[in-house]
């Protein structure tokens, strides 16, 4: 592989994924908010609610189109930039994507057209059902792609086949109901609901501060802050479960999230902290320049037991006999045995030497768990970049706490007082829109940077997964995508803000 090829391939995928995630959360949540509003309209027959539904629906559509466009790129980039990956695990990874197409995308796209153009063409009931189906469809598509992502983080339900040199699925249900996939799905859609709620309360707050569209804004605010409060509590619960899963399945990621170099029992969580840039795996520097710690919290969060031992990065790299953790070097040795055994197997089969092939196969199967380690050059390479993971995690959690408080305050004041009087709170609601996007992206940084260097945990490092291609090609396409996505994002923001300025009574 050419030098830098892997980095450019990762950069292109990260670019696409991060742009995609700008648009998707709003689609996930706004779909339901719009459906709730339309349900109220159908129940009450009030034109005010119809207008409200249509207004938020317009914003939904502006956002939806570009989410679809970035989504298709992600799907095809598995093939264009990760061809080896696509073969090595396509038998498992492809299935959820295909099912997503059959079960979710068609539902989304077919009823999307009815939702926008069907107001006077289909019955009121059919229209309402269509709106709900768009929301359900978009969330179902999230399910399948997150199942696929969950599988990369914690591969289950498959077996390696040395004849075809790939992993093959042996249980669809294990893949679908993998605890990592389930918690990832719940946490991710939860974040989408919160994002959409922030969007609606933020925009409504802007109208209230401007003294415009008061009734409309207050009603929207109540719907969205209720939805936001419920879903942010849900987000906390699913986040707790996600962290627990990370602790069990990806301890290295958890250690990076917390900047934990030395493992310990009764480990605390660093609530606020600044990492010491001089700290490395091998020196004795203090990991933090400054930290505030909540005692016992990490043991509790990770293992649901305040006395539990939480392994640090050093334990995971250099081993910890007391805790029964083997060294990365041992894993690499086993991995190399597996890689070698696969080559021996292929050669023996070519030479028609079945005895030798069988011997190689036994060695391969014994060491297959560590197959990916066979490609790791230095034990320290299994540590992800600590700083981005640590900071992203803390930003995400802190903002999540703020959002919960914001929704509670907005809901309480909307119900009990005149919310228009609380201008500082309304201003912070507007500013919370960008914060919501930051929190969501930070979550993905934790999930994806935190699992480096693995494309598939323990089985395939990113370096092996990438398509073999001259780096220049990927550099050129990276800049093409970066330019196009940025232009479209600017267009989206300009159109969106213009529509908001026009308001529910001014345009269509």
């Amino acid at each position, binding site marked *: 592989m050419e030098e830098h090829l892997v980095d450019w391939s990762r950069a292109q995928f990260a670019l696409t994924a991060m742009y995609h995630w700008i648009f998707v959360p709003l689609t996930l949540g706004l779909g339901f908010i719009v459906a709730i509003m339309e349900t109220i309209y159908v129940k009450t027959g009030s034109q005010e609610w119809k207008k409200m539904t249509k207004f938020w629906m317009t914003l939904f559509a502006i956002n939806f189109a570009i989410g679809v466009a970035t989504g298709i790129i992600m799907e095809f980039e598995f093939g264009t930039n990760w061809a080896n990956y696509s073969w090595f695990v396509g038998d498992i990874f*492809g299935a959820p994507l295909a099912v*997503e*197409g059959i079960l979710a995308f068609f539902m989304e796209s077919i009823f999307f057209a009815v939702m926008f153009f069907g107001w006077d063409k289909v019955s009121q009931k059919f229209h309402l059902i269509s709106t709900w189906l768009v929301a359900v469809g978009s969330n179902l598509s999230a399910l399948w792609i997150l199942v696929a992502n969950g599988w990369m983080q914690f591969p289950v339900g498959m077996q390696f086949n040395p004849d075809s040199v790939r992993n093959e699925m042996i249980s669809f249900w294990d893949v679908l109901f993998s605890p990592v996939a389930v918690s990832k799905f719940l946490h991710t859609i939860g974040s989408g609901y919160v994002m959409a709620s922030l969007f609606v309360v933020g925009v409504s707050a802007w109208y209230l501060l401007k003294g415009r569209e008061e009734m409309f804004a207050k009603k929207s605010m109540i719907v969205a802050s209720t939805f936001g409060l419920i879903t942010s509590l849900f987000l906390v619960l699913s986040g707790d479960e996600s962290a627990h899963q990370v602790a069990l399945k990806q301890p290295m990621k958890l250690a990076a999230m917390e900047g934990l170099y030395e493992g310990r029992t009764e480990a605390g969580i660093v609530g606020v902290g600044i990492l010491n840039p001089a700290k490395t795996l091998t020196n004795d520097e203090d990991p933090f320049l400054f930290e505030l710690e909540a005692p016992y919290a990490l043991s509790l969060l990770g293992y649901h037991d305040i006395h539990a031992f939480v392994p640090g990065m050093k334990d995971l790299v250099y081993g910890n006999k007391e805790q029964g953790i083997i060294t990365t070097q041992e894993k690499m040795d086993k991995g190399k045995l597996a890689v070698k055994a696969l080559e021996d197997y292929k050669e023996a089969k070519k030479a028609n030497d079945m005895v030798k092939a069988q011997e190689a196969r036994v060695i391969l199967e014994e060491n297959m768990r560590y197959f990916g380690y066979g490609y790791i050059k230095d034990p320290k390479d299994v540590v992800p970049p600590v700083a981005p993971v640590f900071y992203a995690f803390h930003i995400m959690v802190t903002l999540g706490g703020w959002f919960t408080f914001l929704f509670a305050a907005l809901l309480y004041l909307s119900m009990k007082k005149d919310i228009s009087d609380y201008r500082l709170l309304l201003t912070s609601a507007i500013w919370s829109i960008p914060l919501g996007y930051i929190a969501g992206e930070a979550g993905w940084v934790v999930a994806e940077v935190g699992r480096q260097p693995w494309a598939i945990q323990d089985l395939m490092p990113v370096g092996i997964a990438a398509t073999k291609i001259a780096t220049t090609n990927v550099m050129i396409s990276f800049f093409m995508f970066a330019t196009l996505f940025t232009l479209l994002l600017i267009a989206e923001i300009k159109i969106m803000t213009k529509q908001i300025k026009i308001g529910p009574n001014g345009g269509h």
Partner: protein
Amino acid sequence: MGFGDLELLTLQQYWWIIISFLGGFFVFIMFVQGGQTLIDKLSDNETEKTMLINSIGRKWELGFTTLVLFGGALFAAFPLFYATSFGGAYWVWIAILFCFIIQAVSYEYRSKPNNFLGQKTYEVFLKINGNLGTFLLGVAISTFFSGSEFILDSNNFVDWQNDLRGLEALLNPANYLLGFTLVFLAKVSGALYFMSSIDHEPIIDKAVESIKINFYLFIVFFLGFITWILTKDGFSVDPNGVVFIESFKYLNNFLETPIVLALFIIGVLMVVGAVFTAIVFRKTCCIKTGGVGIVLTVMAILLNVGFNGTAYYPSTTDLQSSLTIVNSSGSHYTLMAMSYASLMIPFVIAYGAYAWYSMDKVKITKQEIESPDAHNY
């Protein structure tokens, strides 16, 4: 008895049939792409143009979705194709993707105030998607017959032999035949769709005129393409999986699988019949007949190149690296699991057809587009 009891080969064939059907459906839905290239020719003023864009604008997601499903189904059912072709012929696919991203936003953003790039730009995007996107897809599919330059190593990882990474397909003039065939076919079906969905005489008049020209161009390239594949050497596979060159392979395939040949002939006749009815009798019905005809014809061509011992994605560098439905498929278990999911397809088609019917039974009129609270593109 379930899918699990079927033999691997049967499941591979079943999935190739589904892929062929999706391919056919996608080519049919490219009436959206064709329609996009006609928005200026079929309109005399902004209202008419908006009517045209709103007509196909209600269907573009369907095409997009089909493309996504086509990708997903290939990934799951024939992962080695996914890895080899997308990773190998990098630039062709990236170029196609580009042509599709710009489509997705153009409908929604085109007529919105403050849209940054201007209405004209979004209309140009639609035309690039309609002409170049369609053309490149045709060229990419044409390599199923002309072959590509790649080697698979012992891990089945692709090593593409041409630095143009897929763009070399443009150096083979034969690949242009299918490219242009699709471009003109999409224009014809686009015009047929406008006739069925818009109730406005001036547009229908111009649609009929445009079908006349584009249909003749389509026929020229289509006959060229068919003549090329029926007379060329093809990539054959023997029962042991060894690939070899066979003269008149694709002609033989048609003759040896009469069902596929029948599908092909019926499909072509339906398309010709639909076009004939539209231009001679000015009937507005004909996108349905024409659409079924397109699906059948494309299916027959893809079945031809996949069935009857044929390597559907041949390598001209190393014949034995060529992909067949047998050596490139998912495992028995995965194909079985996916086959259960595929039972949902008729259900999806049913609700899709219902939604389509409900929406299209009221035709687009000038009044609707000019109404103040219309959601217009």
